[in-house]
C-alpha cells in the first residue's frame, strides 16, 4: 500500500447505508463514523472503534495504515503512513473539543497514568485534558527528583506501577531512553512525553498537524529549525518526521548548539538565521535554555538574541504565508521578539490546541477499543 506523503485524499464507499455510493474522504468518514458510533452507543456494547471493524469498503485506495504499536517511543521508528494516520485521527477528533460538552465515553474505565520526572505544565496538562475528554481516569505523578535521588530505581517504579494495572503510561524523563527502559518492562503501553535530549514525539505530531492545517500539505515545504538543536528533543522528533514526509529541513544556530553529524539525518545546516529563513514556509523556533549560558555554548544572551532572535525583518525574507512556531515556553525578546510571537504569522496557540487533539488521537488509537 502506498500512501501519499502529503496526506492526499483517500476515498471510501460506505456500504449498506443511506449514504449510497457517494465518495467520502477519509476525514469525512472518520467524523461520520465516530459520531454514528457514539450515537448508536457502540462503545457500550464493547464494540471497537478500530476502522477495520467498521462496515467499510475501500474505494479507490485501501484502508489507511493502522497504528498498531504498544508504545510510542519516538518518531524515528514510525512510518510515514502511521504518522499520517495519527494526524487524520487527530483532525477528526478536534471537533470534540469545540462541543459544549467536551467529552466522549470512548476510554471509560481506562486508566491513564502520567509520570513526569521533569517540570512541565503544557505537556502534562495537554495529556490530562486529552484523556479526560475521552473519559479515561487519569492519575498524575510528578516526581520532583530523579529516581536515583528519590531512592527508588526506575525499575522498581515500573514494577510498582505495573501492579496497579494502568492501561497506558505517559512518561517524561531527563534521561534519554528512559521510556524505552519502561516499555521493555511493562505490559501496558508507554508514550514518550519527552526523554532527555532524544525525542518528544507528541510535540512533533502536533507541530505536523499545525503545519498541515496551515499549508494543506507536509511535503515539499522548507522548514527552518532555529536555536539549541543539540539539546532539543523537539528538533530531533521534528527532523525525523519532516524528512520522512518529504520536506526540507534547515537547521540554524551557533555551531556550539548544532550537533555534529546532523547532516547524516538529512538536514541542511547553516549558521545564519537569514539564510535559514530565506523562502521558508515554516520557521520553528526553539527555546534557548538560559542555564546553557554558563556552559560555554555562547557568550551572552544579548549576542545570542542579536544573532539568532527572530524578528519582523526575518519574516520578510520568508514566504508570504510563512508560519512561526515555538514549542514553548517562549523567552520573549530572546529567541523571538514579542511582535513576531503575537503576530499574524504566529501559530503558537494553534500548536497548543492541536496538542490536545493529537494526544486524544494517540490515546484512542493505543488504548481505545482493545480487549473491551
Amino acid at each position, binding site marked *: 500500500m502506498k500512501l501519499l506523503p502529503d496526506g492526499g485524499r483517500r476515498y471510501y464507499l460506505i456500504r449498506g447505508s443511506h449514504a449510497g455510493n457517494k465518495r467520502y474522504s477519509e476525514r469525512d468518514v472518520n467524523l461520520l463514523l465516530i459520531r454514528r458510533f457514539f450515537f448508536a452507543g457502540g462503545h457500550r456494547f464493547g464494540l471497537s472503534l478500530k476502522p477495520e471493524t467498521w462496515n467499510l469498503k475501500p474505494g479507490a485506495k485501501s484502508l489507511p495504515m493502522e497504528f498498531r504499536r504498544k508504545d510510542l517511543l519516538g518518531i524515528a521508528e514510525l512510518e510515514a503512513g502511521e504518522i499520517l494516520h495519527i494526524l487524520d485521527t487527530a483532525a477528526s477528533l478536534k471537533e470534540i473539543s469545540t462541543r459544549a460538552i467536551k467529552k466522549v465515553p470512548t476510554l471509560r474505565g481506562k486508566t491513564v497514568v502520567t509520570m513526569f520526572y521533569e517540570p512541565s505544565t503544557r505537556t502534562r496538562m495537554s495529556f490530562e485534558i486529552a484523556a479526560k475528554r475521552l473519559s479515561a481516569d487519569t492519575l498524575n505523578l510528578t516526581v520532583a527528583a*530523579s529516581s536515583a535521588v528519590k531512592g527508588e530505581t526506575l*525499575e522498581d517504579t515500573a514494577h510498582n506501577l505495573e501492579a496497579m494495572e494502568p492501561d497506558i503510561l505517559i512518561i517524561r*524523563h531527563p534521561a*534519554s*531512553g528512559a521510556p524505552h527502559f519502561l516499555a521493555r518492562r511493562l505490559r501496558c503501553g508507554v508514550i514518550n512525553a519527552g526523554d*532527555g*535530549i532524544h525525542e518528544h514525539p507528541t510535540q512533533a505530531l502536533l507541530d505536523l498537524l499545525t503545519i498541515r492545517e496551515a499549508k494543506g500539505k507536509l511535503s515539499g515545504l522548507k522548514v527552518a529549525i532555529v536555536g539549541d538543536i543539540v539539546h532539543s528533543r523537539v528538533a530531533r522528533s521534528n527532523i525525523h518526521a519532516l524528512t520522512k514526509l518529504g520536506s526540507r529541513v534547515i537547521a540554524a544556530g551557533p555551531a556550539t548548539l548544532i*550537533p555534529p*553529524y546532523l547532516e*547524516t539525518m538529512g538536514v541542511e545546516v547553516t549558521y545564519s538565521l537569514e539564510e535559514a529563513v530565506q523562502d521558508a514556509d515554516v520557521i520553528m523556533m526553539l527555546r534557548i535554555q538560559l542555564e546553557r549560558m554558563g556552559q560555554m555554548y555562547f557568550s551572552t544572551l544579548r549576542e545570542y538574541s542579536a544573532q539568532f532572535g527572530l524578528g519582523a525583518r526575518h519574516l520578510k525574507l520568508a514566504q508570504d504565508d510563512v508560519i512561526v512556531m515555538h514549542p514553548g515556553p517562549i523567552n520573549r525578546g530572546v529567541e523571538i521578539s514579542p511582535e513576531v510571537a503575537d503576530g499574524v504569522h504566529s501559530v503558537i496557540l494553534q500548536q497548543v490546541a492541536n496538542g490536545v487533539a493529537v494526544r486524544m488521537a494517540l490515546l484512542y488509537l493505543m488504548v481505545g477499543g482493545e480487549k473491551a
Partner: protein
Amino acid sequence: MSLLITGGLVVDPAQNLEQELDLLLTDGKVAALEPPGGIPRKGRRVVKAHGLVVAPGLIDMHVHLREPGEEYKETIETGARAAVRGGFTGVACMPNTRPVNDSASVTRFIRDQAKAAGLARVWPVAAISVGSKGENLSEYGDLKAAGAVACTDDGRPVMNPLLLRRALEYAKTFDLPLLLHCEDLDLRADGVMHEGRVSLELGLKGIPAAAEEIMVFRDLELARLTRSRLHIMHVSTRGSVALIRRAKGQGLKVTAETAPHYFTLTDEAVRGYNTHAEVNPPLRTAADVVAIKEGLRDGALDAIASDHAPHGSLEKDVEFSEAAFGLIGLETSLGLTLRLVHEGVISLMQAVALMSANPARILDIPGGTLAVGAPGDVTIIDLSREWTVDVRDFASKSRNCPFDGWSLKGKAVMTIVGGEVVSSESKQ
C-alpha cells in the same frame, strides 16, 4: 608430582615454536619439552592434547576484581575462577577498589586473597597517586616490595601533566611500568557513548574520539620527555593506533593493549539503550574496528586485555545515562580473539603473543612462555570447539556481558597453574 601433556600443538611465541610436542610439568615448572613420545609416561599423570593447542598460560593484564569494597560485583575468588574458566592463568587487577589500592597493605590483602583462592595468579596493579586523586604520588617503593607489578590511573586519568611527568620519572626508580588510561575528562564531560551518528539519534551525550587521542598524544610526548616506558590501556580509536604506531617507529618505549569489544562491536551495539554495551572508552565506529584489527596485525598493539569490569543490576538496570561503564570479558576474551584467528586477521602465534607472551613481558612477570624452567602455567585450547555464550553459566558474579547468546568457535578446555589443573572442561 608431574603432569605430562602429550601430542598437542605447542604454540610459544617466546621460543618461536609452533609444533607438536610433549610438555612435562614438574614441581610447578616446565621440566621438559620434547618431540611426541620423547618423555616417558610412567608414573605421570597424562593429559592427551591431540588436536588441541598447548599455549603458555594466558594473562589478562587488565581486569577489575572489585575486592576490597564491592564484593557484590566480584570477589578475587570469583574473578579468579572466571579467569581460569576463560583460559587465563594470570590476571592483573586494577586499583580502583574501595579503598583504592595505593598502599602496601591493600596490595598484600589482594595477594593473600588470591593465594587463598588458589586459582589464577593475581598481579596487583597499584594507583599512580594517593587515592587516585591526581595529587600526590603513592609509595611506589613500598608497593613494589608488597607485590605490585605496575601503577595505573585506570578509571581516573591523571589530568595534570606535571604529576604524570613526575610519576613516569619516579616509577623508573623502581622499574615499575605505568599503565595509562588516556582520556581527557573535561572533553568527555558527561558523555556516555561514542560521539557520532548513533549518539545523535539516541540523544545520548557523546565522547569524541579526540578525548582519547589528545591524551594518547600527551602521554607519548611525556614518555619521550622522560625517556620512560609507558603502556597505553584499552586503545579504542583509529587515531590512537596511528599515534602509537608512529611513536614506536620513532623508538619510544611504548606498548599498548586493546580489548575484544573494541575489535568486535561498534557504537551500533548501544541502540535500544543497551547498558551492557556502555563502556569507557566507548564502542567506536566500523572504521575504528578496522584500525584496531590492523594494529593487532602489524604490532602497533601489543596485547589484548579484557578490561573485565563487573557491575550488578544496581549499576546496569537503570537509565542509560545513569548506568556505570564497563562489561565483563574474562570468559569471552579468548573466544572473541580466536574469531580474529579464524578470520585470518592474526595468526595463532600472534594471538598467543597478544594474550600471553606480551602481557608477561610488559608487566615483567614470570610466565608467557613454555621454555624449560618457566612457571608451569598452561592453557589448552580447542580451536574448533563451537559454543554459545550464556551469562547464566559464568563463574563471574556479574552478568554485564554484551555477548550473551553469541556463538563462538574456540575455547580453553583446560587451564593449568603451577602444574595444577585449576579448570577443566571435562570435569564440568
